[in-house]
């Protein structure tokens, strides 16, 4: 805590100098009428440039009482509990391990996974997923005729610009960043919803681009799944829940007859804390949290090893978010799942991830273990993001620790794209794109200032 606080104070001082300049630049860039595609909103089939975090207004809670088997964690009556006493001690209910997943020697069984999680030390295990220099550009040019009349060149939005990371089996890797940073595009590239412009996605040693033939492709697809952000849009409103959950089972032909499918759907519903009778209902009969449980049940239906979770809780209320996050961790421990977790919420990421990549305008600016990132953030952007997290122990936050806004990704700044907002930026930062360099503590940072030792973090601590 204290380190973070010091980092905050530090960032506050440093920010003050460069702020006026930074804001001016950013907003001139944004107000550029030519570049005005609205702040990061693409055309109809646009990339993820605008992950809204807005809660749907209709998110009224539904059905009284979700059927959770988990014990209640509110403190005993009569003795009001502060949050410091938050009962982490209560034994977490573990789901019965379905086992048989550990093909690799290093793949931990359920209890081992739980233990490993507590240590939070990635590495060791061989990566299940590797992403190498992934790039994806979207054509956001105006229609051909208009472009011709206006004598404009084609315009590209480089949503993902050279992203590399690896996720060991059974671990959680998180990508964090603000809207337009490309984190959701990375998720969609991995599951095949977008085609990468360049780079490789290697799953369990196989380059996804080299898998030919639909049968082979389906075999691989069976092994991963995705959970989406908006539980109101990710379930077909015209389908009954059982049909929704059974869809992957049918598509991959995992069960022979309807009775077996029904039994499996019932099992899945139970696994996510719903009752088998809920299968006969339609999605609109459920609350947001229950819908997200249905999404998870569907995602587990084909027994995947790898789950891409794209902001799975950002449309949910905070108490429901806790239910879903707990459920996801229980399932991970029980089934040995590997997660790619996408979020804009650093506190959630801190809770879920073993390793974290911070993205800004299509690039990863810092990768580190969860603990290291929050204790010793190195990149100025990471430090700025940390400064945005509300701190309940301290009222009132530095007015100017955080400055500027994400520039329009269609016309990103030169050099290090963060330089207009960076208190440490100098001439080199404005011209030269920093590469991701390994630090002695195992993390990687793309920052000239850190490389040159100008970041001054040590002096403050």
């Amino acid at each position: 805590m204290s380190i973070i606080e010091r980092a905050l104070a530090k960032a506050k001082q440093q920010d003050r100098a460069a702020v006026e300049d930074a804001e001016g630049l950013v907003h001139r860039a944004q107000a550029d009428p030519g570049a005005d595609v609205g702040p990061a909103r693409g055309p109809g089939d646009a990339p993820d440039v605008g992950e809204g975090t807005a809660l749907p207004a209709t998110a009224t809670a539904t059905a009284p009482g979700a059927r959770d088997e988990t014990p209640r964690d509110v403190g005993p009556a009569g003795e009001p509990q502060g949050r410091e006493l938050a009962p982490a001690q209560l034994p977490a209910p573990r789901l019965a391990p379905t086992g048989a997943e550990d093909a690799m020697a290093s793949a931990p069984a359920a209890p081992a996974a739980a233990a490993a999680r507590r240590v939070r030390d990635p590495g060791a295990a061989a990566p299940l997923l590797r992403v190498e220099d992934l790039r994806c550009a979207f054509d956001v040019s105006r229609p051909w005729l208009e472009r011709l009349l206006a004598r404009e060149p084609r315009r590209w939005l480089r949503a993902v610009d050279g992203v590399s990371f690896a996720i060991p089996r059974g671990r959680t890797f998180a990508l964090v960043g603000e809207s337009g940073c490309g984190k959701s595009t990375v998720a969609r590239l991995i599951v095949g919803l977008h085609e990468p412009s360049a780079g490789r996605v290697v799953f369990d040693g196989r380059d996804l681009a080299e898998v030919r033939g639909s049968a082979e492709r389906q075999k691989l697809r069976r092994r991963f799944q995705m959970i989406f952000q908006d539980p109101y849009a990710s379930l077909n409103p015209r389908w009954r829940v059982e049909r929704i959950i059974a869809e992957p089972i049918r598509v991959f032909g995992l069960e022979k007859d309807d009775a077996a499918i029904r039994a499996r759907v019932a099992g899945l519903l139970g696994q996510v804390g719903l009752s088998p009778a809920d299968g006969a209902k339609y999605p609109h009969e459920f609350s947001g949290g229950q819908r997200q449980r249905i999404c998870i049940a569907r995602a587990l239906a084909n027994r995947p090893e790898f789950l891409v979770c794209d902001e799975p809780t950002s449309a949910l209320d905070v108490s429901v978010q806790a239910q879903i996050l707990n459920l996801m961790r229980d399932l991970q421990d029980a089934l040995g799942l590997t997660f790619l977790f996408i979020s804009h919420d650093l506190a959630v990421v801190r809770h879920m991830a073993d390793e974290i990549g911070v993205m800004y305008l299509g690039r990863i600016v810092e990768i580190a273990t969860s603990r290291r990132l929050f204790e010793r953030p190195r990149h100025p952007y990471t430090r700025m993001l940390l400064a945005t997290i509300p701190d309940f122990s301290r009222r009132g936050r530095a007015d100017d620790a955080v400055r500027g806004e994400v520039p329009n990704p269609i016309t990103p700044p030169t050099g290090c794209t963060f330089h207009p907002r960076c208190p440490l930026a100098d001439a080199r930062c404005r011209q030269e794109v920093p590469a991701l360099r390994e630090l002695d503590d195992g993390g990687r940072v793309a920052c000239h200032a850190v490389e040159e030792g100008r970041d001054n973090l040590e002096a403050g601590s």
Partner: protein
Amino acid sequence: MRTEPPTSAPAAAPPVPRGALARLLDGDLFHSFIRSPITVLSALVVLAILVAALLAPVIAPQNPFDPATLNLMDGFTRPMQANEFTGNVYWLGTDAQGRDLFSAILYGSRVSILVGFAAVAFAAVLGITLGLVAGYRGGWVDSLIMRVADVQLSFPAILVALLIFGVFKGVVPPALHDKAAIYVLILAIGLSDWVQYARTVRSSTLAERNKEYVQAARVIGVPAPTILLRHILPNVMGPVLVIATIGLALAIILESTLSFLGVGVPPTQPSLGTLIRVGQDYLFSGEWWIVLFPGLTLLLLALSVNLLGDWLRDALNPRLRR
């Protein structure tokens, strides 16, 4: 301190499975229907005309197109008045051949409604298919389909229909004209009307395609035709239903217009439009009823169907937005 398990909570609103009818009667749609007297009236009018047309052979006092049943002496009988020669009384009068207008209208409505429904079905199937494909595939397929639609829209529907009729007259031997005319009519009206369906379905498809449930299906490799048919189609049908209702009124009017212009159904198998065309010859000689009653029927039918369509649009809209 842990008291009872939380299962006691959801006592309210037990999910008792109810029949489809009960759900319909309790639904918002039915409720808004009942609360709008004009809509109920329109529905009754449409229903009455539909039933009457369907049961024409049973209801009609005569078969107006069987020459054997006609008596030329009955010609030009005024409505509700006895014929000066035969003494016969006809509700709506007769035409030059002594044909009972009431019977003629019943039989004429049959043709009009048949052509209307068939044309709407044809236009809807064509438009929905093209709209789904355009919206889902995007790119040049989308551009091609939508440009064709634009070109089509820049001609009045009636011109398109006339053009198709002209081609038909030129290609098909005259002997077959009367037989095939009704199918060509359906084809002509359908082809002039698919654009609306295509446009609506395309824009709904664009919206649905980016929804996460479609992406979830794509992630597990569901093939595109299955996604279109199983996932997207049921979710874009709401607006289609509205267009189809209003389109039905338009199709019936278009059919009458074409028949009025003489390019529609042959006089041996007259529709409301044919009756109006025949009747207008007598308008200036004082036999007003021959054109008035088929005209009123057409007006009533088209108006009622239109009102139903308007109500449906309003009733479905807030639900779609929700």
